[in-house]
């Protein structure tokens, strides 16, 4: 077995990678914007770089980071390498909140109604999760509660589509559900940033409790870890970070699942060592995927969530097969 590298070194490498990707992200797209276009205000491409691509890039980092970090924290908490934010039902309940505003046609009235509804949805999802799983519940009931919420929200979204008053609102809902970073502005960055940063910081404090959970729930408690507090902080952190991400980009799956997996061979399995690098890794992964999406020569841009699923599906399958082989 390779000895795990220091999280600081890996974080440093990921940061450099992220900076390279940021540079590429500002250059790449339908219109190629070389360095010269960045410095001159007269160049019409200046607006593309700073008006369109900079917000889009920032958003990719925030949302990808939130998903990667939430995935690492959830996997640590559930001791299950297949857990991700969707497992808690947070993405689904946030999406339901957003879909309801689209369905009721309230989204057109003010730009903040949809994100707000998504965050409220995420908050309610977490409240339902805590209520369903109880105070002293085990991780199994926690996961099952998340699964129930996810299923209920999925059905409610399907119902909204089913009963939609006209094809345009169906179109609008479906379009929004497929997560994307296209056409996002500084406005969306402003909406997502506080939640991602606050939720992310909350999750970063959980490293030691997650490490102690390596010994199981009883083991962690015997080491003085307050599990109900850990669970509450975890749920709030994930809800706030993922809720505000889903609010501005729609549902993007697999980032939370894949990122910790790609990092484990480098960093080892200790949950605390994976948290901060998973933020950087998730950001890099999402940004790289978004650059690829922008470069695809298609009449309409491929949605980021579709590209992610195309990448994540086979990855998930390969992981399942290798896990089965290990268990066999």
């Amino acid at each position, binding site marked *: 077995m390779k000895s795990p590298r220091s999280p600081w070194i890996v974080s440093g490498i990921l940061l450099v990678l992220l900076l390279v990707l940021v540079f590429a992200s500002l250059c790449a797209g339908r219109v190629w914007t070389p360095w010269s276009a960045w410095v001159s205000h007269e160049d019409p491409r200046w607006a593309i770089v700073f008006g369109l691509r900079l917000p889009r890039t920032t958003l990719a980092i925030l949302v990808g980071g939130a998903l990667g970090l939430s995935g690492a924290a959830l996997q640590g908490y559930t001791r299950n390498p297949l857990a991700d934010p969707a497992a808690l039902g947070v993405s689904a309940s946030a999406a339901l909140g957003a879909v309801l505003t689209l369905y009721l046609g309230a989204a057109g009235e003010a730009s903040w109604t949809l994100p707000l509804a998504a965050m409220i949805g995420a908050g309610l999802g977490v409240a339902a999760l805590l209520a369903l799983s109880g105070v002293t519940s085990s991780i199994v009931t926690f996961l099952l509660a998340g699964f129930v919420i996810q299923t209920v929200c999925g059905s409610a979204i399907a119902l909204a589509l089913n009963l939609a008053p006209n094809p345009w609102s169906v179109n609008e809902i479906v379009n929004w559900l497929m997560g994307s970073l296209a056409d996002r502005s500084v406005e969306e960055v402003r909406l997502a940033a506080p939640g991602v940063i606050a939720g992310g910081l909350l999750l970063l404090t959980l490293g*030691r409790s997650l490490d102690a959970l*390596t010994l199981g729930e009883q083991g962690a408690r015997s*080491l003085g870890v307050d599990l109900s507090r850990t669970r509450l902080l975890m749920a709030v952190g994930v809800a706030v970070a993922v809720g505000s991400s889903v609010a501005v980009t729609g549902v993007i799956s697999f980032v939370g699942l894949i990122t910790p997996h790609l990092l484990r061979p480098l960093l080892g*399995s200790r949950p605390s060592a994976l948290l901060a690098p998973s933020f950087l890794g998730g950001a890099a992964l999402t940004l790289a995927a978004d650059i690829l999406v922008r470069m695809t020569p298609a009449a309409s841009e491929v949605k980021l969530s579709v590209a992610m699923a195309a990448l994540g599906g086979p990855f998930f399958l390969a992981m399942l097969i290798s896990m089965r082989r290990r268990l066999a």
Partner: protein
Amino acid sequence: MSLQAQDIALSFGDQPILRRITAAFDKGRVIAIVGPNGAGKSTLLACLAGLLKPDAGAAILDGRPVAALPGRLRARRIAFLAQTPEIAWDVDVRAFIGLGRTPHLGAFGPSDGDRAAIEAAIAAAGLEAFADRPVTRMSGGERARALIARALAGETDWLLADEPLTGLDPGHALDALALFRRLAHDRGKGVIVTLHDLNLAARFADRVLVLNDGTLAIDAAPEVALTPKILSEVYGVLIRRHAGEIGPLIEVLGRAG
């Protein structure tokens, strides 16, 4: 400096598990809790470790209820080895043993003192050669030692182990018990273990508590507690005690009656 069970009663639902148990434990000794399945051994140990809160009565550590201690303080005093220990992630042995330092860690991660305690625990369990190996790929005996070392790393006064010999071969079981005795007699720790093997309890414990259906049948030195009369009553089996090679040998002849 003592740990006491003070009139502890606990039920799961309407099923009483412990019915008013009172016992005092002292440091520097190995104390074994024995009894049939479902007698309440593990439940009593979990109450003493502060992991379960009794319905009535309390576990008292140096005059204060264990359940009222903040988790971190409690964990610095009492180490607990679970019966079915879970090792969720494939970390190396040193990192795994380092988890025992969790209640001591300061804001900036492990200090020199923490690292020294981890190395001392590795040495005490004789795991120097395994320290960099992944813990999930150790054999049962090595893993049992790693789990004990994890508990030692916390440098607690008390070590409470719930059936630590489960799945160990005779050699490794002897090693583990010898280690418990050294910890109690040489380092003055209080060691409380639940055991199923009556012969090992007779040979290694300084004191034996026999539990029967949630009550304390007897609390005494092994030669007094583990008599054929008491054991056949509690376990419902016929028992004879022979003079063995190194001490008494408890032989189970068959079901009583």
